[in-house]
């Protein structure tokens, strides 16, 4: 019999009470239990960053976090960062800079960018590369992603 655990968690500002299998990952909880499918499964072993979400203010690979760790915690996913129906500036700049091709890495890339700017408002190029190194993209070659991030930095200064 699978062991389950009752958790209280806040996702994108909304509170949930969920009965969670102990071995379920945060990624699976978000996608399957809460139907928040914007967070993607790219490798399920913490190497591609497609599953990046922000947990208590820190960006994590949600495939490496047990869902029960979200108990009494706050989670922010791609679905939660827009502002009153408008795109978040980071989302807007990703669109305008041509940083989106297939779009599979995009949610993770945007969340990591947000986490970085929340921590360091004026990151250097070194900082950008350090933060985003764990988010793989096979389509863009990263050039326009860096363009988008640079525009976002200017915006928030």
């Amino acid at each position: 019999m699978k062991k389950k655990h009752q958790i209280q968690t806040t996702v994108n500002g909304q509170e949930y009470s969920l009965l969670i299998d102990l071995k379920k990952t945060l990624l699976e909880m978000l996608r399957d239990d809460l139907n928040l499918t914007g967070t993607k499964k790219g490798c399920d072993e913490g190497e591609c960053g497609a599953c990046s979400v922000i947990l208590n203010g820190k960006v994590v690979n949600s495939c490496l976090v047990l869902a029960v760790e979200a108990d009494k915690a706050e989670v922010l996913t791609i679905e939660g960062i827009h502002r009153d129906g408008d795109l978040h500036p980071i989302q807007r700049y990703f669109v305008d800079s041509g940083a989106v091709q297939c779009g599979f890495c995009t949610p993770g890339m945007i969340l990591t960018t947000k986490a970085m700017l929340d921590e360091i408002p004026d990151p250097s190029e070194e900082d950008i590369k350090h933060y985003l190194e764990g988010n793989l993209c096979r389509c863009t070659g990263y050039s326009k992603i860096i363009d988008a991030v640079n525009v976002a930095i200017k915006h928030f200064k």
Partner: protein
Amino acid sequence: MEEYSVVGKRIPNRDSVEKVKGSAIFIDDIKLKGMLYGKILRSHLPHAKITNLDVSKAQKLIGVKAIVTAKDTLRERFSISPTWADKRVLENEKVRYIGDEIAGVAAVDEDIAQEALDLIQVDFEELQGLFDPLEAMKPGAPIIHDSVENNISKVIHLECGNIEEAFGNADLILEDTFTTQAQAHCSLETHSCVAVYEPNGQIKIWVNTQAPHALRQRLSLILGVDASKIHIITPFVGGGFGSKIDLEPSQAISVLLAKKSGKPVRISNTRKEQFEVTRIRHATISEMKFGVKHDGTIVAKQAKVIMDNGAYNSHGPAVLAYNNVMFSTLYRVENIKYEGSLVYTNKNWGGAFRGYGDPQASFGQEVMMDMVAEQLNMDPIELRLKNANNPNETTANKVRITSCGLKECLRQAKEASNWDEKKEKKSKYRGMGVASMTYTGGGSKGSGLNFSGATVQMNPDGVIHLLVGATDIGQGSNTILTQMAAEILAVDPGTIGLTASDTDTTLPCMGTFGSRVTYCAGSAVTQAANDLRLQILENAAEMLEANIEDLEIKGKKVFMKGSTTKLVSYAEIAANSFYKKKKPLIAHGYYNGPEVTEDFDPISYRGYPSPAMVFATHIAEVQIDPGTGKVDVIHFVTAHDVGKAINPLLVEGQIEGGIAQGIGWTLTEDLKFENGRIINPNFHDYKILTIKDITKITPIIIETIDPNGPFGAKGIGECAMVPTAPAIVNAIYDAIGVRIKDLPATPEIVFQGIKQKELR
């Protein structure tokens, strides 16, 4: 140069907003009521006969709803062409690589499906595995496919002019051997599908494919079902690069499981599975021989290529054909000899991968060109300019070139990279290298088919809707095709509704590959849009009691020229047509070119029919760390002849993405095989570029305005992957005098090269 309102503008991908919001639906996001999860039992042996297959224990596991084996199939073989068909979707006789599908299980969750796999009993009689094409070709080697002698799936011979005489007349002859390794596509989204089998026999399958219409035909063959009963929908695709073109056995298996269980079935590859069992780039061994005159004229060139097919054909024969055609077409050389052999081994099947045999051809050829330049004491760019193709020429291998900007690419790349200045002021361990390429810029009709269809209609409210068979895999075809329609119909592209890549509603398109969508789907779209534009004008002329010549279109209204009051809107035209005249406003376009002449020989691939060839030059600047052998690519200057850039922002995206994959192939990506098993099936051990490895790229778009391409456009999708490796490797030689002839040029290899040089 003609100025357009919408074509040529830097417009972001029209799907970008959905994607940044996370609301774009990918296959794994689809959940259907009662959906089951499928898993596949695959061979763990590279070469074996199956002597026993017993699924009874697995069937008894609670939660298992269906199991299928070869017995549930028609045992048909498939490939991208019926003549090359050699793979079944499920095997119960013989397995030929680690990954061959033996059984499929559908269960209520993935864990139970996985558990069921462990309960399936399979007995094997192990056979000797062949992992090196040179070993596999030897007489007496075990045969992988019955009746395929020496495991050679295909041989291509091409000879132009008089090769022996030409080499006899050469002032200088150079010969060398080059090898290139396999490569994994590493799309961020793995292969995935959801299949539904209705009680009335209708099949619906959501799948991340690059070619839904072709897939429909192939599934029809495998399942023994009329194609019209199969509905394929491709919402979004998380990267393809060629990996998602063919029929993937899991797609057929999911349908079989859906039929047996009566429930929808999803099968998604894990990342490990994706690395371990899916197709890879064909590895090659190329012996090349060039004969040149002192003045730099290449009088003869020859290539003998052995291409590792892996266990099954997939695209192999066509990739070998492209390897031949691209080797033979680049540069004006009258005497050419090409011998290529495609050899089966017990490893992952080689498949379509960005560049399709051209990166392999380009690597050897462009390093040879540099070796020739060195021997002749000639600048490598000058050597290439001397032999460069010209517009409106037919090559010695009878390939028709229409527009051609190769010389312009060479000149502009040279200037933008400060080539002369940097070559003069050389600093230690820094170097620059050049390489050029050619490729098909509109797919090809080598198989007899190169079709793309489009429908453009005006809805009763005056809004334009475009339906195309072409699939957007992130490259932006949805965006550029609506741009083309918008230009012709004088509307904002954002107002055009779009349906794409749905076999029930869109005209067939062969698929997204061969860098063909801009040209072929674009040709269909412009055809349809021009037809609809004429219908609009005819209706307006009737309504305004005017002649068509006196009308002009602006802002979704048709005006009498010179008047601001005598006009009729698109909405009025539509209402008039639908409700008064009772006629819809709809037009179709269908492209299937070019005309194939008798110059084309499908055996030697002489006269290979592409509607347009594209060209490019890359110049790489590298800095090498002598202590570690690490190669830092500092700058890539790239000039691409694309005919006409429908959307320069998206063209740059293809160039930048292609270069990243090219750098990976050259320096860091290496699939490690051990007795047929890939031992680095993850992102940690198989290294694709991260954002830390990014290089500065200066993309130069050369517009030669092809006479036949839509708005003069040609393709770009694969091109940037082609000359990257030789450009880097030539730069390494310029930096440290170490000639790399085998990929990848890992730090170990470069370091060893430096040490060996020091010892001399």
